[in-house]
Every structure is written in C-alpha cells, then in structure tokens.
C-alpha cells in the first residue's frame, strides 16, 4: 500500500528529470544564442525608437525614424532594387540549383568532384568575390570583356550601366551561393526511393515525365528549404555588392543592408535610423518566410 502510494511521485520526479535533460543539453547553445543574437535583436527594436550618434546617449523619437525612412524617396528606390534582386536571386538559385543537382546526381563518376567544384565559391570570402568580379567585369581590360572580344563582341559596360550592373550583381550572387543550394537539393534527390523510378519506367514514363511527375513533387520539401534560405540571403545581400559596385552606378545596386550600413557606420552616424531599417528588413523577411512556409505546408498537405 505504502509502495503504491509513493510510486507516483517518484515517477513524476523521474519524468521531470527526463524532461529537463534535453533543455540542459540545449542550455549552453541557447545561452550564447540568447546573449549574442536574441538580446541584441531585441535591443535593436528598442534603439529603432531613439536617435543616437554615439550609441551611448539617446533621444526618444517614437515612430520618427520609421516615418523618416518611409517618407524618403531614396528608400523606396532601394526597396525596389532589393525586391528585384531578391526575386531574381531566389528564382535563379532554385532553377539553377535544381538543374545542377539533377545533373550531378546523374553522374556515375566524378560526382564528388563536381559537387566540390560548385561548392567552392561558397567558401570564398564575399569581399574577395566582389573584388575579383570587379576586376573581371571592368569594361577595359576586364577578363569577361576580353573573352567576349575574341568573338567580336564590343566592350560591355557591366558596372557602369544600371541594368547591366543589376544583372552583374544577381549573377555573381547566384554564382556564389548556388553550390550550397545544390547540395541541399542533391541530398533531397538522394533521399527519393529508387523503386519509385523503377515503377515509373515500368509504366513507360520517359525522363522528362519522371522529372515532372516524380522528382519535382518529391523534391518540394528541399525546394522549400532552398526558397526560404535564398529569400533570407537575397534580402541580406551586401558584402560582395559593396566591393563589386559600391551600390552604384547611381544607387542602382544599393540594397537595403547597404542603406542600414551607411546609416549606422558612415558619418553622420544614425544608429536609430539603422535600427529602424533593420526592423523593417526583419519584418519583410519574417513575413516572406511565414508565407513560404504556409504555402509549402499547404502543398505538402495536398
């Protein structure tokens, strides 16, 4: 009787202990994440409602910083540039990523070699990527124009024409990141059960039909991950663009992170405006990620 009476608390205690263990394992990482990511982010929200030029003394602005940003014509130009860049970047990253993943997956020999080749740009510092491509895309003496010149193509002003500069930053961005997305998609492809393809072949489906009816739908979860990551990368693009075009010509490749950087780190320093810009960027990325996620879940459920 006594044993029966004392058993339940022991069980509760034990399950409480077991319940705590995972959190204890997570604690070191969560503490670092909380201290160096969550807390600064919350502080960023707070600073966005003040103005400060030194990060130590603050003047209350309320929604003043947001009002200044949202009524600034230059900001809307930057939003337009960012939207164009992010859309093109996501689209091209997914399309090229899928194509490369399928091609690499079909290789019987040298799969590791190709995987490494496409992944190498991911490992290069974005600042270096910007500098190297700046040199390669120079109108006079640049490697790209020299190469095109062999085919009689006249010099192209890659970095001084608004549209061409936009194309150049998108192309370099995709070149730099697509290897990473390809790896995610390749993992997705390799997780598809081969017997599904065997059944399709028995039913007489050609390769294109197999891709459309099997590969693409079964790859949806991996594509969703790539779309979410590429959206975040697309909206956060800055470092390589700053060294490639500096946001020029005439602001044509200035994206929102450069706007935030210039407010926060170029004289006159405006930490409040930079924080407000960061909050707006956070809201945009957060909203898009939620939309992507909901659309993806709906498709999966269907």
């Amino acid at each position, binding site marked *: 009787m006594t044993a029966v009476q004392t058993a339940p608390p022991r069980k509760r205690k034990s399950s409480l202990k077991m319940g705590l263990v995972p959190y204890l394992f997570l604690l070191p990482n969560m503490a670092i994440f909380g201290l160096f990511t969550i807390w600064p982010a*919350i*502080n960023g*929200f*707070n*600073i966005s*409602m*003040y103005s*400060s*030029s*030194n*990060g*130590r*003394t*603050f*003047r*209350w602005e309320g929604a003043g910083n947001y009002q200044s940003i949202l009524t600034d014509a230059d900001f809307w130009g930057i939003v337009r540039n960012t939207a164009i860049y992010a859309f093109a970047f996501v689209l091209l990253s997914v399309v090229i990523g899928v194509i490369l993943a399928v091609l690499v997956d079909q290789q019987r020999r040298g799969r590791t070699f190709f995987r490494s080749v496409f992944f190498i740009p991911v490992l290069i510092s974005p600042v270096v990527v910007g500098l190297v491509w*700046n040199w390669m895309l*120079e*109108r*006079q003496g640049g490697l790209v124009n020299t190469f095109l010149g062999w085919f009689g193509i006249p010099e192209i*002003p890659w*970095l*001084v024409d*608004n549209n061409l500069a936009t194309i150049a930053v998108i192309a370099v961005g995709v070149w730099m990141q697509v290897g990473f997305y390809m790896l995610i998609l390749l993992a997705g492809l390799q997780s598809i059960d081969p017997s599904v393809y065997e059944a399709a072949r028995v039913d007489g489906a050609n390769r294109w039909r197999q891709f459309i009816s099997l590969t693409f739908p079964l790859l949806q979860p991996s594509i969703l991950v790539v779309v979410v990551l590429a959206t975040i990368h697309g909206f956060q693009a800055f470092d390589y663009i*700053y060294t490639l*075009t*500096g*946001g*020029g*010509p*005439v*602001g044509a*490749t*200035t994206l929102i992170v450069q706007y935030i950087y*210039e407010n926060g*780190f*170029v*004289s*006159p*320093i405006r930490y409040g405006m930079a924080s407000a810009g960061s909050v707006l960027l956070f809201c945009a990325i957060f909203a898009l990620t939620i939309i992507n996620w909901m659309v993806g879940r709906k498709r999966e459920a269907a």
Partner: protein
Amino acid sequence: MFVTLRTLSPRQGAITIKEDEVAKKSRITARLMLAVTAVTLLGACAPGQVEGEGGAGQEPLAVESVDPAEFKGKTLNYVYFTDGPDQQATRSLIGDFEKKFDVTVNLEVLPYKDLVTSVQARLSGGNVPDVVRLTGLTDFKADLLDLRRYLGEKYAEEFLPGPLVGATGENDQLLAVPSDLTLNGPFVNVDMFKKAGVELPNPEDPWTWEEMIAAATKVQQATGSQYAFAMDKSGHRLSTVLNQYGTTLVADGKAVLDADKATKALTPLVEMMGDNRMPRDFWLGSGSRYTGANEIFLAQDAPVYLSGNWQVGQFAANAKFEWAAAPNPCAENCGGFPGGKYMAALAEGKNPALAAEFIRFMNTAENQKTFIVAGGFLPTRKDLAEEGVAYPARQPDMDVFLKDLSRTPEVGYSANADPAFAGSGTELVNAVSEVVAGKTDLPSALKKVQEKSQALVDELDR
C-alpha cells in the same frame, strides 16, 4: 487530430474543430498581446543614457598643474591610424616620451575605416583609450577633454588659426591639437608634359582651370594617354574646385552652397567625363564609396591628377616616371582645400593629465617637424610655418603646397570642420554621379545637394 475525429460523431467532430480553431486563435492573440506588451515595455526602457539626463558636462575651466614625477610608471593608450611613413616617426617619438617620463605608451594602430566605430564601441564598453588620432571631431565632440585644463589658455596660440578651427569647441574649448595639415592639389606627369612639348605650370604664377584643362588635353592628345585628367572620387576633393570658384558646401553651421558658382565649377568636370577625358567608369563604377585615382596616375593613364600632398611620399616610392606637384588652378580664388589630423584626449580616459602632456610633447616644434617631415605633411604650428620646414626628399614639391597654403581661402577650414561637411560631400559626389550618368542636369542635382545639406545641418544642429 485524425485519431480524435475518427472516434467522434460528425457533429462532435465539427464542434471539436471549432473549439480547436478558437483555442488556436486565442493562443495567437495572446502571443501577439505578449509581443506588443514586450515591445511597449521595452520602449519604456531607454537603451542607454537619455539626452539631457546626467552627464552634466565638464566643470568650469581651472588650469591644473601636474608634477611630471606623478606620471612615473603609468600607461597610456594611443589609438592611431597611419598614412604610411608617419608610423615609424610616431613610434620613435613615443620612445622618447616613454624615456623622458618613465611611462609606457601602447600604440594601437587601427585601419582608418574602423577607427570611429571602434573608439565608439570602446567608449560604450568603458574601455576608453587616452589619446586618439582623428580626421575630424564631429563624432566625438562631447567626449573630448578640454586640453586648456592642463595646457593652459595660451597653448592654442602656438598653432595656425586655420587648422585650429576644427579643434575648437564651444566657448573656445581646445578639444584637440591639429597635429598635421594637408592640402589638396594637382600633380603632373613631367615626362608626358615634356614629350608633348607642353610647358609645366609655374608655382609662382598658378594656371587657371581653363589653362590646366587645355594643357592636360593637349598632353593626352600628344601622348595618346587614356585620359587627360584624373581626380579622387571624394566630396573633399570636389570641394577644392568649389572653393576655387568661390563657394563651399557648408561653413559655420550653415548650408551655403551657391548653385551658380557650383555649376560653373563642376561643368568642366562633367564635360570631361562626358567625352572620357576624365575617367567616367571610375566615377560611376564604385557607388558611394571613396576611391583614389592614384593608380591611374601611377599607370601614366592621365598626365594631371588632383589629390593632395599625402601622395608625395607614395609617388616618391612608387612612380616609375618623373612627376611634380603643380599649383592649384585658379578661378575666383587660388589655393587648395585643407584637411589634416588631430590628436585628442578622451575626457573619460584614465590619465587625462598624462594624455595632455603626451599631446603637448608630440606637438613641440621639434617633434612636429620630425613627424611631418617623415609623413610629408604640412606644419600646423605658427613657428614652423614661419621658419619653414626642410623636407629632405621632394622639397620643391612640398614648397608648391606650402605656397598654395598661403593662397587658400580661410573658409575652407571652417567648411572642413563643419559637422555636416562629410555627409554633404557624399551628397555632392552622388549628385555629380547622377549628372554624369545622364539622370539629371547639374542645376537640378545641385538644388538637391542644397536641400540635403540644409537637412543635415538641421539634423546635426538639434
């Protein structure tokens, strides 16, 4: 969810789904409420000291005399950025100071780009350096020590009035000491001029803008160089041209750009970029970033290059051709546009008296001479300016800058020291870029610069 539904009747199932949805909505509402409350509470807590609270400022001035023996064994942190050859001279002078006062000086050399944010971060973190080398005081004015407290009211009189403008705070506070002076001005490729048979400009009788452009174009045509004229992409360098045409972006806390004079000043540059006598791609291809055109001059792609005296040391070391400093071209005014660096002590530093003594030591006539000769700078001290400075290398070139210094309009000093100058300069660079790209005309672009400069002045004056 499916399991629950299967065990229930359709009616019961519908009710469960409805209840589930209601619960979900309430959860979302509760989370939103929590977030809004958190943000509101957060907004109520200032992220730092609110302006007007605390920080009563510095006490009224009373000169303090300090016995140098008290410095013994102390340590001083000096945050520094280098232009190149000046670093060795600084280290050598620091060695002398350490010996004289039996102290230790930590020289912390930072990249120029990181200097302001790094010192700001150290001020926020309570790890305040004692002395810092700056190009302007705008970002630190409230944090600097009034050096009169230790160096006396009369100390400022040892320096030239022009460079002193940027070091002076409200109520004649001496917030820094101008440690070196720079002056913008052109360089010419002597070999190319000789080859083209074009006469070199006379430093005693400066050329005009028209004469300079005509000479540069003639040399370009004769030698087949890619460009005639190159210039750093910078608001500071463009201000040289504005100053020569009798206007400036900002001065004495006001936006003062004269659009007509600025149009006259910048039209030749826009025209030269239009027909690529001046490198158009160079101007458009680097966005809002500062870019130096020194490599274009060193590659002999342009016979005339507008930059400043800090290039003398670099060209002496790297140029594979004969070159020379040339006088600034004249329009309404002659002379260049001034710049320079300051040594400032931070009020919250651990050793303010030692910091002030260090600044005094580094800027005695003898020590400033050592420093500026090594770095190729111009003097800021009255006595050095009067007696002249002998530069063992490239004396004739430095003499050209010294001559132009006497012709430089005073307004340049207050323009360069104005808090709104850097931001207005960036707007000017962007405006010229828009005109060169054919997006707008010069008068419209300059009107936008006037508006943005005024907005900056208003913002920084708050």
